[in-house]
């Protein structure tokens, strides 16, 4: 894992998938071990700090001051009782945040991967999130214009991969992975299962074509395969 992120450049932008499952946990922990700083991240939420060195992720990078800006659908906790990780940093101006409705976030990423610089969406019209955005009517309904997102890096978590880089995801672990893999210059992938020969995955069942993938690494024995959502404990790769 460390080799896969060894060349990671300071001040890069990074897409981080995951919505519960589907997080590139091992790549993020490897990035934590580098000195990379000045990041701009694109992710669903900012997450929390972790005491487990193998679960160090975006929340830790943010709290360590290694992130300049977060683009996310959750920049603060929805519960008044529990302050979100980034909240204080944003409030005191040391972290820039861009809060985006989740569907708009997904579509901005998909657009970045599809060479579409901007599009219109109804989401958020009439709310603060549309503040300052260009509004426009189509067929009698009001939409806001949103622009594409494209990053220097995407860290991806796949279930299966072949040597051509073709990726297959499992169940809800798919989430942002395919669109983020399409919307970054360097696509680094951690894979749960042993990487198979090109030709062993049915072309009809590929979720991300290998042409998008820069680097493939299988999660090593001892690496984090899943997180038990109740206990927060890592379930590790055993073979």
């Amino acid at each position, binding site marked *: 894992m460390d080799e896969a992120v060894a060349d990671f450049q300071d001040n890069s932008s990074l897409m981080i998938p995951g919505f519960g499952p589907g997080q590139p946990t091992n790549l993020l922990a490897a990035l934590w071990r580098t000195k990379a700083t000045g990041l701009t991240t694109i992710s669903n939420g900012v997450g929390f700090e972790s005491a487990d060195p193998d679960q160090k992720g975006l929340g830790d990078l943010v709290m360590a001051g290694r992130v300049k800006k977060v683009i996310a*659908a959750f920049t603060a906790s929805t519960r008044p009782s529990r302050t979100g990780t980034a*909240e204080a940093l944003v409030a005191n101006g040391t972290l820039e945040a861009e*809060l985006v409705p*989740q569907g708009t976030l997904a579509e901005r990423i998909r657009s970045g991967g599809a060479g579409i610089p901007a599009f219109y969406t109804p989401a958020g019209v009439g709310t603060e*999130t549309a503040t300052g955005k260009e509004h426009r009517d189509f067929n009698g309904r009001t939409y806001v214009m949103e622009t594409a997102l494209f990053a220097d890096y995407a860290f991806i978590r796949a279930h299966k991969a072949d040597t051509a880089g073709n990726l297959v995801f499992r169940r809800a672990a798919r989430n942002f992975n395919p669109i983020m893999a399409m919307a970054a210059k360097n696509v680094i992938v951690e894979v749960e299962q042993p990487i198979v020969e090109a030709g062993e995955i049915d072309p009809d069942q590929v979720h991300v074509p290998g042409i998008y993938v820069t680097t493939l690494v299988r999660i090593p024995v001892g690496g984090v395969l899943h*997180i*038990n959502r109740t206990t927060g404990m890592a379930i590790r790769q055993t073979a």
Partner: protein
Amino acid sequence: MAEEKQPLTRDQMAAILAQNMGYGWIVNLGIGIPTNVSNFLTPDQEIVLHSENGVIGYGRLAGEGEEDPDIVNASATQPVTLNPGAAIVHHADSFAVIRRGMIDVTCLGAYQVAPDGSFANWKTTNEPWNNLGGIGGAMDLASCAKQIYLAMEHTTRDGEPRLLEKCTLPVTAPSGVTLVVTNLAVVAVRDGKFILEQHAPGYTAEEIQAVTGAPLEVSPDFRRVAV
């Protein structure tokens, strides 16, 4: 003699939401009370549950030993089961379903709701726009679903009303709410009015009005909840 006052439990609120779903609907359940709705749907309702993460056709919460770490609902942590015929799509395709208007109802939690169908659920202050908040998929859902059902406590912890003439917190959508299920009442939102349809055991219309920040029109069919 009057029945003993019994505010509804979270499960009862979820059950009432489930009762209000039509045959074959495509339904999205938000975080909180709504995620429990999946446990109260009956097979003959033929509801298809859609989650922001691209799971289409999930079922009830997974029981002990049934959990699959890769199958969760919109909470991103609660394991759920898949129904036969489930399908998985990526996040952009999941919101394509939402924006196209295919969601018959989205059930969401909320801090505040007003008779114009507006509601607030993403920001706990009304400070100026500062890019802090937790929107998730609520705005996309609220802008595009055919109806919005809310599940919420009738008042704040301090006893302040959450059903108001006008939301004081930043809204998630300026309209669209058609039903509000609280721990005290079931309130329809129609024609710019709150219509009090049902009450929790032991509560009168007057008692519910007393903790509500906007006029309630009492439905001719006003009745005790059936859960």
